[in-house]
C-alpha cells in the first residue's frame, strides 16, 4: 500500500474506502448493497480514514472488513463484540464498526452480543439478517422460521426463532434500528444515525441470500410488497404506512392493531406516535412485535436513549483514581505494602 501520503486526503470520497482487492460474495448477494452504502456513508461522517476500524466475526457478512479500505479485523466466529470492545476501550477516539450476521451474532456469539449491548461502548453493530447460514451452505439459523427445511433440518426446523430487535431490547441496547438491503438511501440514513448516537448502536439489516434463502424478505420489501408492508418510523410522527398512507397502528388495550384512516375509519390522533426517546421498553417491545405477515415491518430508528458510555466511565475512573492518589509510582507501591531494610 502507498505510504507516500501520510495524511488522509480531505474531503474523503467513496473511492477512498474501496480497497484494490476483489469482492468475493455471490453475484446478487444483498451484502454488495450494504457495502456500497457503508462506503457512501463513511466519507460523510467527518472521521479521518485511519480512525475507522471494521471488526467482524465469521460468516459471509463477516468478510466485510476485507472489502473496506480502513483498518479491519476479521476475527473468529461470534467473538467480534469482544474484540471491538477491546479496540474501543484501548482507543476511544476510533470509529468502530462491527459486522455480524444472524448466526454469528445471535447463535455462537449470542452471549457476547448481549454483553456488548448492555455495556454500551460507542460501537456501531450491523447485524445482517438473512435467516440462514450461507458460508456453510444453507443450514437453518437462529432467526429461521419454524418448519424451514434445510440440509440440517430435512423435516423442518423445530427451533423457535429469536427476534433480533427483541434481543437488543432485552439487553437494553441504547440505540436500536432496522433497515433493508434494497433501500440504499434508508441504509445511509440509518448508518449516519447509528454513528451519531453516543453509545452502542444496534442495526438489524434485512438482507437477502440469493443462494440459500432467496427471496426471504420478498414479501416484506419486494417491489410489489414494500409500499404496503414497510412502516417507516419517523421521530414524532404517527405510525402510518401504506401506498396511500391510509393505514396506521393503534393500541387496543396492550395489543397493537391495524386501523384504516379516513371517513369511516380511525383518525390520525388515535394512532401511536413514534418516539425513539421513549425510555419505557414497553413501547419499543410493541414495535418489535409488529411482525410480518400480521403486521407491516417497521424500519428506521426504534430507540435512541442516552446512557453512560462504557469507555467514558472507564476513563472517568482512571481520572478519579489519579486525582485522589496521584499518578502511580511503582517504586513507592512496591515498598508500600510494608517493607524492611537489610543493611
Amino acid at each position, binding site marked *: *500500500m502507498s505510504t507516500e501520503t501520510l495524511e488522509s486526503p480531505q474531503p474523503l470520497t467513496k473511492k477512498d474506502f474501496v480497497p484494490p482487492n476483489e469482492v468475493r460474495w455471490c453475484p446478487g448477494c444483498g451484502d454488495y448493497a450494504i457495502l456500497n452504502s457503508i462506503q457512501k456513508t463513511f466519507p460523510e461522517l467527518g472521521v479521518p480514514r485511519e480512525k475507522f476500524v471494521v471488526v467482524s466475526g465469521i460468516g459471509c457478512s463477516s468478510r466485510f472488513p476485507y472489502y473496506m479500505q480502513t483498518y479491519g479485523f*476479521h476475527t473468529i466466529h461470534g467473538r467480534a463484540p469482544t474484540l471491538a470492545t*477491546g*479496540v474501543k476501550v484501548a*482507543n476511544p477516539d476510533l470509529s468502530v464498526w462491527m459486522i455480524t450476521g444472524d448466526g454469528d451474532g445471535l447463535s455462537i456469539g449470542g452471549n457476547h452480543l448481549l454483553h456488548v449491548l448492555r455495556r454500551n461502548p460507542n460501537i456501531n453493530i450491523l447485524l445482517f439478517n438473512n435467516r440462514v447460514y450461507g458460508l456453510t451452505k444453507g443450514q437453518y439459523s437462529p432467526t429461521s422460521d419454524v418448519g424451514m427445511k434445510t440440509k440440517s433440518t430435512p423435516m423442518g426446523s423445530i427451533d423457535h426463532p429469536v427476534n433480533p430487535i427483541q434481543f437488543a431490547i432485552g439487553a437494553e441496547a441504547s440505540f436500536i434500528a432496522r433497515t433493508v438491503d434494497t433501500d440504499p438511501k434508508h441504509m445511509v440514513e440509518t448508518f449516519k444515525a447509528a454513528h451519531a448516537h453516543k453509545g452502542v448502536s444496534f442495526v438489524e439489516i434485512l438482507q437477502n441470500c440469493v443462494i440459500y434463502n432467496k427471496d426471504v424478505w420478498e414479501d416484506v420489501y419486494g417491489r410489489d410488497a414494500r409500499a404496503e408492508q414497510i412502516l417507516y418510523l419517523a421521530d414524532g410522527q404517527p405510525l402510518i404506512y401504506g401506498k396511500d398512507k391510509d393505514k396506521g397502528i393503534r393500541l387496543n388495550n396492550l395489543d397493537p392493531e391495524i386501523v384504516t384512516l379516513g371517513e369511516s375509519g380511525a383518525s390520525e390522533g388515535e394512532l401511536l406516535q413514534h418516539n425513539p426517546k421513549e425510555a419505557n421498553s414497553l413501547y419499543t417491545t410493541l414495535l418489535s412485535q409488529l411482525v410480518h405477515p400480521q403486521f407491516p415491518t417497521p424500519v428506521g430508528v426504534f430507540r435512541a436513549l442516552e446512557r453512560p458510555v462504557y469507555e467514558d466511565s472507564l476513563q472517568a475512573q482512571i481520572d478519579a483514581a489519579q486525582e485522589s492518589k496521584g*499518578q502511580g509510582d511503582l517504586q513507592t507501591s512496591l515498598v508500600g*505494602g*510494608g517493607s*524492611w531494610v537489610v543493611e
Partner: protein
Amino acid sequence: MTTSSTQFEEKEAIVIRFAGDSGDGMQTVGEQFTDSSAFAGNDLATLPDFPAEIRAPAGTLPGVSGFQLQFGSREVKTPGDAPDALVAMNPAALKVNLEELVPGGLLIVNTEAFKKSNLLKAGYESDPLEDESLSTNYKLVKINITELTKQALSESSMKPNQKARCKNFFALGFTYWVYDRPLDPTINFLNSKWGKRLPEVADANIKVLKAGYYFGETTELSQNRYQVSRADNAPGTYRKINGNDALVYGLISGVQSASKEMVFSGYPITPASSILEGLAAQKHFGIKTVQAEDEIAAIGVALGASFAGRLGICATSGPGMCLKSEFMGLSAITELPLVICDVQRGGPSTGLPTKTEQGDLLQSYFGRNSDLPIPIIAPTSPSDCFWVARECVRIALAYNTPVILLSELYLAIGSEPWCLPDLSTLPEIPSNVIQPGEEFKIYKRDPETLARKVAFPGMPGYEHRVGGLEKDESGGVSYDAANHENMTRIRAEKVQAIAKSLPPTEVNGASSGKLLVLGWGGTYGAITSAVNRLQAEGFSVSSVVLRHLNPLPLDLEDILSRFDKILIPELNLGQLRLLIQGHYLRETIGFNKVQGRPFTVSEMVEKIQELL
C-alpha cells in the same frame, strides 16, 4: 534443655502449620505469622491450603483450611515438608494434619472445640486428647482457646459469637510467644484493617493477640521456646510478596518500560482472580481493566486492545485456557502482541481449583488447531513472577506474538521475602512498530528475528486488514498451497528464533556429572533445596530449572549431554519429559506427583539418592 520461659532453643528453620475450619481465620493468622517472621528478618516460604468451598460444613474434614510456612535463618526455598508445629483449632483439623506432624513436634489444640458433636463430625469415636499416645508422641499443649478468648474480652461490648471469632488471634499470640515473634506487625495490620471502620474489632483482636502471648508468659505450662535468628540476606529493601502480586507489579513494570498503555481483561477464576483484582486496584497507573463476560471475551478484549496499539493482557487458569484456545490461534496468525497468564491448578476440567499442579504445559504447547507454537515462560518462585511478567512483555512486543506466562497456584498464593529492585535501573522494552514513512507489508519480516512490524488504527496511510484467514506477505487472503506451508513454517521458526535472545542456562552445581535434575517453574524450590543438600554431602548431582519452555534454551541439549542420567520431576504425568525426549531423543527418568501438592524436599532427596 530448659523449660524456663526466658530461655530459647536456637533453630535453623521451623515449619509451622495452622489448621482449623475454613471460617476460623487460619489464612489470616498464617499471613500474620509470615509478616511477623519477615519483619524478624527470616527467610521464608508459605503454602496456604484451603478447600474450594467458601464455607464447607463447619467441623467437617473437607472444611479444614490450613496454612503452612517455613521460616529460617538460612536460605528457605520451600514451605517445608513435615511441620515441626501444628496448631489445630478443632478435631477435624487434628485428624487431617496430625499424620504429617514430625514425631515429638509441638501440637497446640483448642480444647473447647473437642466436644462430642465435633468429634463425631471428624470421625473420632473417642476424644483423641484423652489418648495417652498423643502426649507421648508429641509435645501436646492443650489450651481452651475459645474460653480464654472470651475471658480476655469480658469487658468488651461485642456479642459472644463475635468474641469467639477472635480466637485465631489468641492462637497466633501464643505461637508468637513460643517462637519469639514481634507483635507489632500484627497490631499494625489490625489497626489499619479495622481501626477506622470498626475500632472495637481492632481493639478486641489486639487484646486477644496479647492475651495469647501473655498466656505463654504466665502459664504453668512447661513449654520450650525457640529462636530463629535473622537470615543472612543481601543488603536491600525487602517486602513479603506472593506470586500473583509480583505478577501484577511485573506487568505494570513491563508496560512502563515499554511506554505502552495496558488493557487487562479477565474473568473471575481461581487462582487467577487476584491478578484482575490487583490490576483493577491500580487504576492510577492508567491501567484499563475490563471484567469480561467470559474467558473467551477476556482474551478477545485484550487482543482488540493490542490491535489498537496498546498491550492487551489476560489471566486465567486451566479451564479458561481451554476456552481461549481459538483466540490464541487468531493472535498468533495475526502476529499481534498479547500476554496470556495461566495460573495452573489441579485439573482436568474443574479438577482441584485450590490445589497446585503443572498440568497445562502440553496444553500451552499444543492446545490450538494446526501447527502453531506460542512462546511459554514459567516463573520459578513467587517473586520471579515479577521478572517473568517483564520478560513476557518484552517478547510479546519485540516479536509481535502472543506469549503464555505459565504460573502455578503454589507460586500465586505462596509468599517469600523479596529484595526490591531499583526500577530506574531496569532496561527499556522496545516495541516493534512501523515508523512513519516506512514501507509496510503486513508480514514482511526482520531476517534475523522473523518478527513482523505492526501498524495500528490511528496511523494514517497504513490502513490494513488482519484476520484468521491465511495471508500472503502483503496481507492479502491467500489459499495458495506453497504460501500456506511457508507461513506455517515461518510462524514456528519465529518462535524458535526467540531462543537467540535468551541468556545462558544456569546450572546449579557442576556442569557435568552423574545426574542432572531438570525441572521447570515452581518445582525450583524443592529441586534446588534437595540438590544443594546432596551436593553438600558430596553427591554428583546438578540441577537446571527452566523458565523458558518454548523455545527451549539453545544450550540445553549440550547441558543434557554432559550428564549420565536426567531426572525430570514434575507435578504432572511427564509433560516436560515428553518434550525433552521428543526434542533431543534423550532418555530421561520421570518423577511425577499429581496430588495437588508441591514436592517435599525429602521426597526429592530420596528420589535422587535412588538414582545415584
